[in-house]
């Protein structure tokens, strides 16, 4: 499959009063056309910032370096106007909190048709028709009536559907999703994920899902990248990474998910806390918390190395993870 997006060595430096920190430190990955990639990690690991660099929406005190190739063109080399033409049209974004991401004073449907008018240049009436059509396709009943509703008159699930309709209305080739279901309850979550999956198939979209919920990723993505402290520590197909993890952090994450099939007395958490990005630990950033830490983990750089077909890890002792999963298999999600 041809590659739609390739991020190479993305670095985002943020200048703060207490020094310069790297919110994203050398992140590289690719997404093929029509493919869904999940980007998982804890809060503050840099996954949302990575997402924003693709669309050029980072704050003023941040500088980006690296290359972000979209259909062969480097997005970071584009000037403001060129980037703006890209946004909403070739690449669009779905935000986490639909209540704040929709303009409270504008009717829901109008926000969709405005995007169509601006990005595709269609006239008012045509944009209105297309907006209603898209609303129906994402499963909003009585779309014509709900077009005229204001965001506060709609439920959370409806608002998120409006957001998705807005993001898909101009037929993008890549949709960036920033935790689209985190603010929703579980039943609505499933509906929204179904919508995204259906739309992805129908329009042959590529999707980049940023989330901290591993279950969402396993249900919707073919590949996944795990981020820790502004770096990618493991990347591969969901099947490989979730059943045969090759990084202690990924293993720790998977083990910490509570299981309902058997009773547990205590939850298994990873001890310690993620490092402050102003002063990350030398060597492997996970080493202070790693159960398999060795001396050579404490210094040096640890780029991703392949450990299988489409499976890469930053851990130089990843065979310890293999042993651990053989001894105690990671149970499949369900």
């Amino acid at each position, binding site marked *: 499959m041809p590659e739609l997006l390739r991020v190479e060595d993305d670095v985002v430096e943020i200048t703060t009063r207490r020094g310069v920190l790297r919110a994203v430190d050398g992140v590289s990955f690719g997404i093929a056309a029509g493919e869904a990639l999940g980007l998982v990690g804890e809060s503050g690991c840099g996954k949302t910032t990575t997402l924003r660099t693709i669309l050029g929406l980072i704050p003023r005190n941040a500088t980006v370096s690296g290359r972000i190739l979209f259909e062969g063109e480097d997005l970071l080399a584009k000037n403001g106007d060129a980037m703006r033409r890209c946004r909403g049209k070739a690449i669009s974004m779905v935000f986490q*909190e639909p209540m*704040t991401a929709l303009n*409270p004073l504008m009717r829901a449907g109008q926000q969709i048709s405005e995007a169509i008018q601006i990005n595709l240049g269609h006239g008012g009436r045509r944009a209105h028709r297309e907006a209603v059509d898209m609303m129906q396709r994402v499963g909003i009943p009585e779309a014509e009536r709900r077009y005229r509703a204001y965001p506060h*008159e709609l439920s959370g699930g409806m608002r998120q559907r409006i957001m998705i309709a807005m993001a898909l209305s101009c037929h993008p080739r890549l949709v960036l999703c920033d935790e689209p279901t985190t603010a929703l309850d579980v039943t609505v979550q499933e509906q929204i994920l*179904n919508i995204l999956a259906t739309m992805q198939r129908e329009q042959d979209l590529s999707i980049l899902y940023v989330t901290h919920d591993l279950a969402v990723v396993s249900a919707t993505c073919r590949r996944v990248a795990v981020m820790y402290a502004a770096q990618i520590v493991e990347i591969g197909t969901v099947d490989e990474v979730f059943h045969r993890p090759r990084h202690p952090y990924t293993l720790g994450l998977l083990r910490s998910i509570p299981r309902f099939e058997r009773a547990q007395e205590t939850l298994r958490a990873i001890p310690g806390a993620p490092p402050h990005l102003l002063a990350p630990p030398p060597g492997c950033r996970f080493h202070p918390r790693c159960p398999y830490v060795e001396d050579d983990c404490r210094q040096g750089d640890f780029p991703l190395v392949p450990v299988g077909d489409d499976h890469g890890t930053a851990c130089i002792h990843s065979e310890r993870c293999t042993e651990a999963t053989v001894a105690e298999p990671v149970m499949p999600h369900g």
Partner: protein
Amino acid sequence: MSTLAPESTAHHSLSPDLPPLAVANVKDGFRTRWYRSRSFVAGLVILGVIIGLCTFAPLLTPYSPTQQDLTHVLQPPSAEHILGTDQLGIDMWSQLLYGGRTDLRIGFLAVILPFILGTTLGCLAGYYGRGVDVGVMRLVDIVVAFPFYVLVIALVFVIGPGERGIYIAITIVGWVSYARIVRGEILVAKQQDYVLAARAAGFGAPRIIVRHLLPNVITQAIVFATADVVLCILAIVTLGYLGLGVPPPIPDWGRMIFNGQQFLTTQWQLATFPGLAVVATGVGLALLGDGLSDLLRPE
């Protein structure tokens, strides 16, 4: 035994079963609520009376406000002259009514120009920040360093008497409040997710400012404007009193007060009634502004 299948599944496999939504209109809320605010209604009534009297002035008095009658100067209220005459024989009542026209008209117009200028500069300063913000705020500092009347009077003095001078002076001095209010609101509003979403959808800065930010921040500016109208009218009356307002023979409450004050012990109505008119107008506008801010406050 038949089961009722939900009708929605046939066509909308992606949609949940929801009852039909009664789509209410937010604007309806304001229309149906306006009479609930007593301040708003009271202010509306007072202003309505004053504006009505001024508008229908020709029907309410046979005299012209500029028609002198030197044979009937300083007459007390009587059947022919409801409020008497001033030292030039001009009927007081018609001066009051036509003077109201002048002062109210100039007052309302003089609010709009600072509103537009201040809101525009406030938007630009708040949205773009950095250089633009620093520049605008330094201008604000310069204007604010002077007391309001000192600057207005100086400007009117320089520009010369007449309406044009009043508009220019008040605009130069009055835009700063609007700019500060709007800038503050925009600084907060632009952090909202929907602004980021608008940028992510490819909208440019002008569209974001005008279509998305402005409607969300303008209510504060409007509420301030209703209070500012009072200040504007007071300023015009003051300028008239100081002889810097509209020149004679155009009637003006301020000049009426000035002319009438020397007769306070004899024909006290000459100075008092214009003053009461100013007070009534101010109270009416203040109540209206209060009521409006009540109504516009988000529930």
